[in-house]
Every structure is written in C-alpha cells, then in structure tokens.
C-alpha cells in the first residue's frame, strides 16, 4: 500500500505535462454545434498525432493501453492543463469503440477503430426512446430483416451529437413480439443513411446538442450487426465494467479543481452587503465540506485504479462513483448560486456568457444522463448489497 509513483510513472507525467502545455488549445470550445464538433475532431486529431489518443484502449487497437495509475496521471495532467474533455468523442471512445473491440468482427475493427482515434468520426448513441429511458429494455424501435439489410423504423431520443455524428451505436428490437432484454440487436448505423431525421431538442441551458432521431425505413446492412441478431442486450452491457472503471475518472479528479475555483470565486465576489462571499462562514464551511468530499472522490479514484490494476476490474466503489460525483457537483453548484447573488442570472443562453450558471443547470444533466441517480442506487442495492429485488 503506497501513494508513490514509480520513476516511469513520473517520467510519464513529465511527458504528458510537457505535451499538454504545448498543445492544449488556447481558445475555448465553441458553443455552436458544428463548430464544437469541428473543435473536438481537431483536438482528437492532435492527440492522435502526438501519440496520446485512446489512453486506455488496448495497444493492439492503436491505444496507449495505460494501466489504471497512468490513466489517473493522464487525467490529473489534463485537469491541470485545463485540456478539452472527450465531448463529442465520449460515445466513440468510452462506449462504441470499446464495444467493437470487445464484440466486433475483424472487419468492424478495421473499418471503425482507427478513424475514431484519428478524430475522423464522431459517434452518437441510439439507445433511449421516449418510452424507454431509465427502463432501457422497454425500447420499441424495430428492425425487420429484408435480404442483407435491417430496415429500421421508430424514434430515439437524448441523442447527443446526432447532428454531427458520422455513426451511431443503435439498439433496436428485431424480433417481433419479443419483450424486455430479448430480441434486441446492436447495430452500427451510418448517420448519412436516407430516412434519418435529426431534430434538436431545446433545453433549459439554451445551447444544447441533444436531439430526437427519427427512422423512416432506414436500411442498414446486416454486416453492421455487432454480436448476434437478437443478442443486442449483452453487447450493450459488455462494456459496463469498462465504463464503471473509467468514464467518471476525469470528473472525480476534476472535482477538487472545481471546488478550488469556487473558493477563488468566493474570495473575489463582493456580495450585496459589501463583504467578500468567503467571509460568510456558512458559505466558507460549505465550500470546505465539499473540498473534503472532493478529496474523498480522488481517494475513490485511486481505490478504483488500484482495484483495476490489481484485480482487473473495479471494486464496489466503481458503482458508487457516479452517484457521489454528480451529487457533490450539484451541492457545489448550489453554493456557487448562493454566493454569486444576482449576477448569477446574467446569462444569454450560451455557456460562455456565464460558465457557472451553465454548470449549475448542467448539474441536472449529470444526475440524469448515463443512468439517473435513482438507477445508480438500484444498481448498488442489487449488485453490491444484494438487497431483495424491487423489480
């Protein structure tokens, strides 16, 4: 048990820090959807050219194959450098790509993986539907086999990045009359296929890249099926452990920095009574409490990578991280709203007009998207605590 880095770890950190210092874009990510996607592609390409793409993808698929500790170091350095996040490459790098690595054919791997790492293809996720969000297995979008094609009809929703994505990981019902987890198929959908309509969904943040996606006789080649026709549920779940271990690592690491920035904000904000916000003991102690929480999240990240490096998979903490990170974040945003006073309302519908206000609203996205808080508690109750089933 130790908190030490090996000399090789430290060399890795030095190299990452130097590269990030020279390469992190100085301009902020544009709010507009197309420009934002172009920014993400350029950043991913820069990572690829610098040899930093796919930090925890296996080496044989072009990734760096970093172990847990090095992955942690990488995210710490990204946070220190305020480097861009995955953004529109989140699905490609943390879900679709790993799923193809785990379950795809050699043809799939050759066709899709390198293009992701090179920043050429954005992927979106076609899982949720208007009647199937938390209860994903209730999905109804159907695919019928017609020769060498699946013909897809229906609607997906919450499709982040649909307007700019080249591909979509699409989960559909291919056995008529099948229920729940049976009869589903996971297929790669080219977003330029005729019959697909993307409709932006307006959100409370003003700017957003969330969409509804409609499918009207969309013909997708059967060779795009990953896994078996009818075996889609297991394909969709096959990267669950990967996600649990890694998806929230950067958020965990970032929280300490975010709390520190909120403390800085409180130090410079003059409130209506003429005092600095930090002089208000209630504000100061809430921020300190959240700083302690953030140190705990970092400790859980170390526990997480230790379990991955020692046992090959995350321990129980892996299931609890999303719940805690999103809750700590929401509490932090509440304090920031409280200490900011009226200027918190200065907001023109884009994140750049007031990052804190955008983040405040975004905190609900974090407690809802990717498995809502209530679903995270169900997962912990079922899989970690083995409590009697509620469903």
């Amino acid at each position, binding site marked *: 048990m130790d*908190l030490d880095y090996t000399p090789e770890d430290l060399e890795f950190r030095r190299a990452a820090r130097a590269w990030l210092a020279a390469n992190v874009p100085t301009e902020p990510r544009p709010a507009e959807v197309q420009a934002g996607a172009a920014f993400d592609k350029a950043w991913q390409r820069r990572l690829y050219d610098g040899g930093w793409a796919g930090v925890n993808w296996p080496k044989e698929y072009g990734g760096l194959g970093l172990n847990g500790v090095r992955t942690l170091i990488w995210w710490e350095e990204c946070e220190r450098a305020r480097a861009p996040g995955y953004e529109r490459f989140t699905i490609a790098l943390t879900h679709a790509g790993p799923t193809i690595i785990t379950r795809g054919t050699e043809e799939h791997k050759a066709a899709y993986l390198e293009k992701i790492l090179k920043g050429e293809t954005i992927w979106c996720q076609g899982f949720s539907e208007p009647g199937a969000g938390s209860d994903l297995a209730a999905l109804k979008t159907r695919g019928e086999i017609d020769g060498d094609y699946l013909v897809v009809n229906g609607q997906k929703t919450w499709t982040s990045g649909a307007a700019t994505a080249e591909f979509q990981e699409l989960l559909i019902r291919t056995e008529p009359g099948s229920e729940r987890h049976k009869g589903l198929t996971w297929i790669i959908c080219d977003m330029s296929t005729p019959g697909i309509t993307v409709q932006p969904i307006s959100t409370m943040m003003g700017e957003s890249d969330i969409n509804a996606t409609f499918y009207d006789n969309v013909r997708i080649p059967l060779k795009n099926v990953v896994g078996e026709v009818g075996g889609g549920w297991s394909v969709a779940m096959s990267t669950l452990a990967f996600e649990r271990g890694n998806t929230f690592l950067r958020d965990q690491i970032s929280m300490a920095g975010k709390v520190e920035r909120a403390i800085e904000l409180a130090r410079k904000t003059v409130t209506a009574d003429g005092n600095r916000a930090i002089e208000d003991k209630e504000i100061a102690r809430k921020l300190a409490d959240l700083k302690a929480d953030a140190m705990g999240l970092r400790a859980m990240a170390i526990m997480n990578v230790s379990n991955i490096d020692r046992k090959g998979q995350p321990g129980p903490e892996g299931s609890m991280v999303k719940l805690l990170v999103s809750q700590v974040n929401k509490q932090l945003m509440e304090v920031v709203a409280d200490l900011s006073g009226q200027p918190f309302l200065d907001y023109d519908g884009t994140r750049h007009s007031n990052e804190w206000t955008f983040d405040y609203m975004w905190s609900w996205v974090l407690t809802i998207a990717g498995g809502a808080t209530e679903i995270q508690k169900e997962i912990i*109750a079922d899989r970690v605590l083995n409590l009697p089933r509620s469903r």
Partner: protein
Amino acid sequence: MDLIPTDDQQQIIDLAADFIINELPLSRLFDAHYDADKARLQRQAMAQLGWIGIGLAEEGGGVGMTVVEEAFILREIGRVIGPTAIIPAILAAKLAQEAGLNDLRDALLSGEGGAALAVAETPLSATADGVNGTARIYNVQDAQAVLAIVGDEALLLDASGASLQELPWLDAFTPVARRDLAGLSVLARVPAAATVHNGLLLTAAYPTGLAEGAVAMVQEYAGIRETFGRKIGAYQAVRHPIAEGAARSEHAKSLLYVAALALRDGRDDVALQLSSAKVVAHRAATRNADINIQLHGGIGITNDLPAHHFMKRALMLAPWFGGRKPLLDALLDEPLLTI
C-alpha cells in the same frame, strides 16, 4: 500507487475482524450497561493482541508497524462500537516512549493501565507546571495519565490519585469525568502536531467503521423484515437510503486509507487529507446511524436494539482532536497539491 491492503495487512484486518466477531458482537450491547470489569478485560485482551503498540517502534516495546495498521484496527473496532479507550492509550504510549516514561508506557502497552483524553470545554492554557481550564475527560477507567492538547503542545498529565468523578453521560459505555485540569501535574509535554495528526487519523478510522457497521446492520434487517407482504429491502424508500449509506462508507474508507498513507509517509498534504478524512467519516457515521435507526422503525429507538449506540458514539467522537467547524476552517486554505 496502490490503495489495496497487502496480504500481510489483510491478515491483520481479518484477525481483528475475527476477534471482534467473537469478543465484541453487537449483541453484547442489548440492554447492557457499562461494566468496569468487562471493560478492563477487553482492554487487556486488545493489549495482548498488540493493538495498543501496533504503531509503536519495536525498541519502544511496540509491534513496529505504522499508523496505517492502527487505522485498520480502529476501523474494525468502530464497526461494532467497540471501546474508544484504545485511542488515548495508543497516543499516550507513544508520548510516554518519547518522554522516557517507560513504566507508564509499559503499563499502557500491557493493558494494565489506561489513558484518558481531555477535550476542552473552555479554552485551555498551559503554564510552567500544569494546565488551566475545564475539560471533559474521556475513558477515565484505570487512567494513569490524561492526554491533553493545549495550543501547540501535547501534554500527559498525572491521573494517579486525581479525583475523576464519573458523570451521567449520553454514551453509556464510555466513563467520562469533568474537571478543572489545574492540579494535575505534568508528566510530559511535547509539540502537539504529531499527536494531533495521529489522533485525527484514529478518530477518522473509528467513525468510518461506525458508518460501515450501521449500514451492515440495516442491510441485514432489510433482507429479513417484511411489510405489506414484501421484504422491506425491496422498497425503494428503504433500499435507496441504504445504497447511499454504502456509498458514503466507501467514500470515507478510500479517503481514510489515503490519509493514513499520507501520515505514514509524511506527505506534504497530510493536514488536508486528515482533516478531510475526519469530516467525511463523521458525516458518514452520523448519516448512516440515522438511516439505521429510521429504517428499523419503532424498534430502532429502543434499548432492544443497539442502533442508537452508533449515533451516540459518532456524536461523542466528533470534538476529539478538532471538531467539524475548526477542521473545515483549517482545510479551506490548505493548498491542493494533487492537481
């Protein structure tokens, strides 16, 4: 970098857990009262296991391990609301060793005598020959010395022959006195930092165990108790608070391990890690004590169930080595060294 206990460390944890299941099951607390003879035997049994000197160097009569192993032991004791007397005993034995008080050290390490902890009730001040001010004195049974933190000094005060009249007290299993410390002669005085840091770690480890013990208790009940024809653990109103409690426990445990390693290795951010660990562990202990009482329903507030002792013990430990508010005020300005 590795936060998983080594095989040797895991063996220490497992042995401690075994001892505790056999010697200190929660069932011992059913409608029980403080029993001085039993408490003495428990102290001696723990001393024989080497727990009081586990982090003390071998040349000082200790086991020669570190504060990390101390934290493991205290977490296990906390799970079953075990005796807190071991906390001042561990710290006083180290101070006695440092001050060359070998008789006192050996008495503590053997469990023959105990040490008490003074926690200020009014501001304490140290003079050339003693301490002025009123304090609660915890774990007065067989106390040969009283540990007091006064400003930037840690003092051992002579408790032999001192009047330590026990008070009626919320936590029935901890004998507590209250008195003016003036009149207790000084046995040893050293800079406080090491003792305070060590004390923060032990009082973060114990409530981490409390948090885990409370969740384990309610988790078991939720799998047995039925209402409206179903096990209550199947209701989201019950299982969700338990899931949150389990997450709080993991959060506290991870931070405890990091804080323990930071203290062992003398890392630059040790103060931030220790303060954070105690704040987070205390919160986890009190909230998990709450769900344990609440989700048991009426039986939860009775003496037929030890649920309330998790709450009382968490409250009692809160001010030791710095309460929540001073810890928060201190950690706000601690620099972040990790990113």
